[in-house]
């Protein structure tokens, strides 16, 4: 099964038969499972920092634990590995004291985070380049590879069951445009379940599409001819509002939208709604006319590009509203905006 360990590649065909390819689908419970304890990932992160925003090239300690497992990470030499070493996880079953050694085949250059998915799976996030994230889904206690794929901006749901991310594309794709596709993946399900099956004979990347409307997550679908209008993420990642709702902001043809996907009915049938974010409610062009004169001519025609959302969360007071936080900029009226949940 070692051939299943390809980076950033749709592996559906290669790993068919691995795991339990259960197609049955049921509603998701928005209550996080008791075993889904947030991992301890080395030194405490800065507030809101995503692991893929950490400096690439500095391996920090990685560990995680639940009621059943305690997992720590080490490494050993590996002549055939890209970094010259392989990462080795030690999983200790609490109570019995059983110890399991899991060697991460095709180890990436750097591992940033590991999280337990229920009591039977471990998801590991690594990187070979600065921003592109390798996701490894392993079965416990054997360490058998369940699935592996690459993506951008992965975001794990509070209960560790769902993963939302941006569909993989070449980091330096040449003279093409990248149309961001937002994907969800159920870490408790099989690789086959997590591959769309819209059309026979078409290869699909891991995960079911959330947005934009009409995308299928087919291989290569997100690369468009140069100068094509494309969707782009304008928030610093994807944000889980609770265990089944994920939110992000997207820009397409000068318009920014807040997108909220409700996965309570499962990843195959997401309920996705969006609302237009009026740039004039946050951007004051007069403020940046003088502070950014060189760029003003360009930006004044597309004020949405001046906003970058760094936080999305349910309003503490009103559950039907979402509070957006913006990265500080001299062009902004305010760094906060509250909108009705779409």
């Amino acid at each position, binding site marked *: 099964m070692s051939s299943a360990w390809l980076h950033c590649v749709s592996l559906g065909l290669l790993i068919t038969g691995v795991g339990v390819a259960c197609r049955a689908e049921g509603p998701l419970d928005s209550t996080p499972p008791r075993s889904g304890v947030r991992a301890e990932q080395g030194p405490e992160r800065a507030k809101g920092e995503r692991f893929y925003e950490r400096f690439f090239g500095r391996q920090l300690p990685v560990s995680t634990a639940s009621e059943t497992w305690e997992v720590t990470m080490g490494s050993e030499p590996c002549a055939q590995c890209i970094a010259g070493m392989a990462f080795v996880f030690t999983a200790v079953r609490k109570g019995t004291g059983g110890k399991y050694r899991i060697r991460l085949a095709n180890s990436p250059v750097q591992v940033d985070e590991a999280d337990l998915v229920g009591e039977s799976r471990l998801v590991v996030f690594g990187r070979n380049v*600065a921003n592109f994230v390798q996701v490894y889904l392993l079965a416990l206690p054997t360490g058998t590879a369940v699935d592996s794929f690459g993506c951008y901006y992965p975001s794990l749901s509070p209960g560790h069951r769902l993963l939302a991310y941006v569909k993989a*594309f070449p980091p*330096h*794709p040449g003279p093409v445009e990248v149309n961001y596709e937002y994907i969800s993946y159920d870490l408790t399900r099989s690789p086959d379940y997590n591959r769309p099956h819209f059309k026979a004979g078409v290869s699909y990347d891991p995960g079911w599409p959330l947005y934009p409307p009409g995308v299928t997550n087919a291989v290569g*679908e997100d690369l468009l001819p140069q100068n094509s209008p494309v969707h782009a993420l304008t928030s610093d990642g994807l944000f889980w509002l609770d265990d089944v709702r994920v939110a992000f902001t997207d820009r397409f043809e000068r318009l920014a939208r807040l997108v909220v996907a409700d996965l309570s009915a499962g990843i195959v049938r997401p309920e996705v709604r969006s609302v237009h974010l009026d740039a004039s409610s946050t951007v004051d062009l007069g403020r940046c006319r003088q502070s950014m004169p060189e760029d003003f001519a360009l930006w004044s025609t597309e004020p949405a590009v001046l906003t970058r959302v760094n936080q999305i969360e349910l309003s503490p007071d009103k559950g039907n509203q979402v509070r957006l936080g913006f990265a500080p900029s001299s062009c902004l009226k305010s760094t906060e905006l509250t909108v009705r949940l779409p």
Partner: protein
Amino acid sequence: MRFTPYAVLKNTTAQPLTVTPALNYMPGGSPVTLPLPVQQLKPQETRRLDLPSMLAKLGLGGFNGDANLTFSITGHGGDLMIATGSVDQTGNFVFPVPAEAIGQSFGKSIGHWTVANGVDTMYSLWNPTNSAQDFVVTLHYGDGSGQYVLPLHLAAQDSTAIDIAMLIAMRQPDANGNLIPDYIQEGSVVFSNPKGRTQWMTLAVCGAFYNPRKATCGDYCVDCYGYEDFLVFADPYSVAVGGTVQLNAQGTYADGSVDDFTTSSSWSSNSNSAQVGANTGVVTGVSPGSVQISAQLPALIDITEQICALVGGISCPMVIYDAASSGSSVSVAVTSVNLSSDQVSVTLSGPSGASGQLVVTWNGPSGSANIASATEGPGTYTFNPSLSGLASGQYTGVNAQWTVNGTAATGSYSTSFYVLGTYAQSQYNTPAESQCPVGNGPAFITAVPNNCYWNAVSMRSKFISQTWLNGSGNSDVSGYGLLQEYTTCSAPSGANQNYFQEVSSITPACGGSLSNSTVAWPSSNNNNLGCGDQVLIVGLGSGTGTVKTVNDKCPGCVAADLDNYNTSNACSLTGLGSFQTIRLNR
């Protein structure tokens, strides 16, 4: 006791001198002027005039009162010495009357009057002109506690006398309601034009004191009120080349007040380094150097002791004073700004010895950001400002200000750059360049011609896999790296409609070629950069930093990230670190 007038004349010249005497007196309160016999004085001759006989011939043999004698000559002050007064028949008691040259003046003053110890002070005042004049007589109290102002009108040729003791005894308040207090027994007096202290008047003044009980008397010196302490300020001064500075000329009046004569003076410069407005005192810097600016003030009365110094001499003298200020014409220029070498050069120009505060600042997003601040003289200075500490935002140049003698010369340098902030610097390269233990393969480049784009179904799985590798490949495929679809709508003969061409180098999104001096920018979320921009990565490499050119996209990079192309053959290229990153040239 009867007093009779006397007059003794002396021709002090070596030439004959014609003297025309006249008598002025006030019969019935109206002035009358009568001619007296013309006197032809030989060189150096001294002659006593027989005034009683002359008066008798005019029918004034029994004249009793005050009279003014005038002696007119054509010559210079001092040509004729005069001794006049009155003397009793015994010759023991004399009232000397100092002769005074008649002429225009500002105010006149007598430094002392007294009514103490039986002494009285009297002033004889005569308007010798043919026009009525108004005067103000100001009696200053000796203890400085106040003054008494007495307005005075004298018709043409009118005379009057003021007896201080009598004035005090009359107890008439002045226009301001002041009375001379009884305890005030001495002071000084000023005679002036009521229109102002620098207005002209013509008034003959004689001051005398006498003590009838002791039978003593004497006369006072009459001072001309005028100016002294002429100067030009600021002194020293500085003017910026191309700039202006206002200089002022002023003089100090006898009463201590300071008057400005800037616009009534004639101004001149002794150097081509600066020009000055002929009647304005406005100095314009022309070129760096030292320069003296002079002001020739208008003709003014100098403070002099007129009567006592020159018996029978001149009227209040008018003088033309010159005043000057030495200064410098200075300039400051920001001669170069080189971010990549972290050097800002400033040249200060001016005469040797010029010194002042130099302040050099960035013109940045929050106003001025300091580069240097020091006291400097002429010369060229190069500063190495801290680039890593600059706040994020747009910068438009460097300003320099050199302040010498209170005048600021300024210079500026336009250069646009944008401080992006602290960016993570990651790396990428081709698989062929990554000497990984698992083997390497050729690089594959994707490209999408117009109207044709990726058809994943027809793409070989090998290439599909390779698409994602971006140089950090996987050992499970024989060739890996960047994959670029090269499709055409009219494929070459024998080829599939969509086919892929394997190439050995990467085509960057902006065109051109990749090198260690190129970077890819997060195109999807960073609008401050674009193809062709140059960035200075402060602290990367040796020296100030490294300048690289943006020629590729990195749509997956987070906002504050630059992906540096790297030809290193290391298997894995990790991050370079986080550095202040500056967009150059715009």
